[in-house]
């Protein structure tokens, strides 16, 4: 009797709060959890006539096909190498901007710099693709106009592979560096000013202050941000690799990433099996990496761990 009463009391007390979470819970189930159970598609020989559940199981055949094709190697190589470039260069520029920005923060104009630098991050990849097109359009682009006016041969940008690693890296850094610097600016403003005062009294120059105080103080936040981005090394910005190169087939060799492959398999080639196999491969690796990164972050600094 006692426990039953208690339980009823418990329920009565918690029910209103539980009801508040119901809409969100339903959304998470539809948007996140049902697709998680849907990963079994990767182990099926999809046949639209038989439907999702009627299609025969095929074990790991989809994965075997995927990794036997040269596609897998190309897309994994692109995803990882681009991400490495983005992480290294992106962190370098973000920290550089942050250090310089905190140097001039008393002058009052840092707001304008920040506004300009963050701006590219606020527009969609579709707009970015228009901007890139204004530079690279074979007929009307700024670059070809400049090349021709200097007596050179115009370049067919959207069919020549060799330029694209550079174009994509520049585009990505342009879009994200200012935004990523925000975190570092906040951390620098949190550094104890007496450290700098002491260093100056000892006669340390500005560069020494940066290398001996600022960077060591930023070490933990930089480590955390690096770990978190390494955890996403198998994920790519679909828009950057799909919109910006204009889905140009001639460029697949240098623009195909796991995300564009999954999209093309699903929406353009109707290759559901391999597409979902690539997607599952990405999700599982991502899961392992997130868990590992979080474990490492927790070891370095318990407060900053994600969970």
């Amino acid at each position, binding site marked *: 009797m006692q426990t039953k009463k208690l339980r009823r009391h*418990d329920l009565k007390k918690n029910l209103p709060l539980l009801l508040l979470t119901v809409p969100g819970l339903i959304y998470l189930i539809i948007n996140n959890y049902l697709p998680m159970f849907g990963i079994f598609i990767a182990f099926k020989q999809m046949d639209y006539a038989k439907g999702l559940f009627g299609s025969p199981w095929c074990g790991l055949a989809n994965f075997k096909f995927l990794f036997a094709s040269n596609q897998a190697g190309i897309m994994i190589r692109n995803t990882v190498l681009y991400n490495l470039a983005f992480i290294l260069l992106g962190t370098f520029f973000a920290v550089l901007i942050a250090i310089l920005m905190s140097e001039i923060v008393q002058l009052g104009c840092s707001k304008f710099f920040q506004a300009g630098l963050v701006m590219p991050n606020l527009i969609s990849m579709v707009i970015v693709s228009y901007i890139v097109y204004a*530079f690279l359009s074979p007929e009307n682009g700024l670059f070809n106009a400049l090349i021709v006016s200097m007596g050179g041969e115009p370049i067919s940008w959207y069919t020549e592979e060799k330029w694209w690693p550079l174009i994509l890296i520049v585009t990505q850094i342009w879009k994200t560096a200012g935004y990523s610097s925000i975190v570092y600016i906040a951390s620098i403003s949190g550094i104890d000013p007496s450290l700098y005062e002491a260093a100056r009294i000892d006669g340390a120059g500005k560069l020494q202050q940066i290398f001996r105080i600022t960077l060591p103080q930023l070490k933990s936040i930089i480590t955390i941000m690096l770990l978190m981005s390494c955890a996403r090394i198998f994920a790519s910005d679909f828009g950057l690799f799909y919109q910006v190169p204009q889905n140009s087939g001639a460029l697949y060799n240098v623009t195909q990433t796991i995300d564009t492959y999954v999209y093309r398999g699903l929406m353009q080639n109707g290759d559901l099996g391999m597409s979902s196999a690539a997607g599952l491969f990405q999700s599982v690796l991502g899961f392992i990496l997130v868990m590992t990164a979080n474990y490492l972050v927790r070891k370095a600094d318990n407060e900053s761990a994600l969970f």
Partner: protein
Amino acid sequence: MKKYKLLTRGELSFKVFALIFLTVITILAVLPFVLIFMASITDETWLAQHGYSFFPKKFSLNGYKYLINQAHTIGRSYLVSIGITTVGTAANLLLTTMFAYPLSRKDFKYRNLLSFILFFTMMFNGGIVPSYLVWTRLMHIKNTYFALLCPNLMMGAFNVLLVRNYYTTNVPPAIVESALLDGATEMQIFRKIMLPLSVPVNVTVGLFAGLAYWNDWTNALYYVDDPEFFGIQNMLMRIMQNITFLSSGQAGKVVDTSAMTIPSVGIRMALAVVGIIPILIAYPFLQKHLIKGVVVGAVKG
């Protein structure tokens, strides 16, 4: 001013270097925007001869005039974008806050369970293919407004954590306890106390959500091919696709967008400018909240 007196020569020259360097990269960051703006007001025939340029010799507003004349397609897609952004942001704020508040209550029995359910979505996802099948085969949202509203954008773990942390750090539990003692119901506490208290963090969350909805084109790419439901980003995307298909000689594969003609080179840039303008207008008012949100989210997300 005392500070400046104490600067050594090295420190002063470093400040000057910082100022110059930041000026240069800020200009580099903004220049591409200037280019598409200049291109959008360049005379069409001049453009065809000389290409996009920072310094066109002949100007014309024909691009914008064309857009105004195309009110039934461009204007409509603009309204779709505004509508979706408004409704989507409101829905997101409501779902996020309703989910976050109970998670902030230490005396809520299912707190840990629900937190885990939320957290897990940040660690693992089923991928695009199962998501696509759930939304199209099970929920049947293809070519409806729900297609633009529902997938992925309506509630995210990151925003929920932002709001939950705001409640745990800024609202003392005593407020809830005394309200309960005074006989308020949980719903009353949520509506009359918690919602108003969360305005500052919800400005940030609304900003993130609003930007995500305004800039979204992936939902449209996957779930919409009826021009009736085209937002501005989607319109821009389809126009670009058609241009690419035509110029690559694959005219047969042109996406069916019979409602639109393919605008000429200058008008395209006018369209892109029109897609950026709302963000440009809103940004100065929102910068502070955006920065704050990024900082709070990064420090403890």
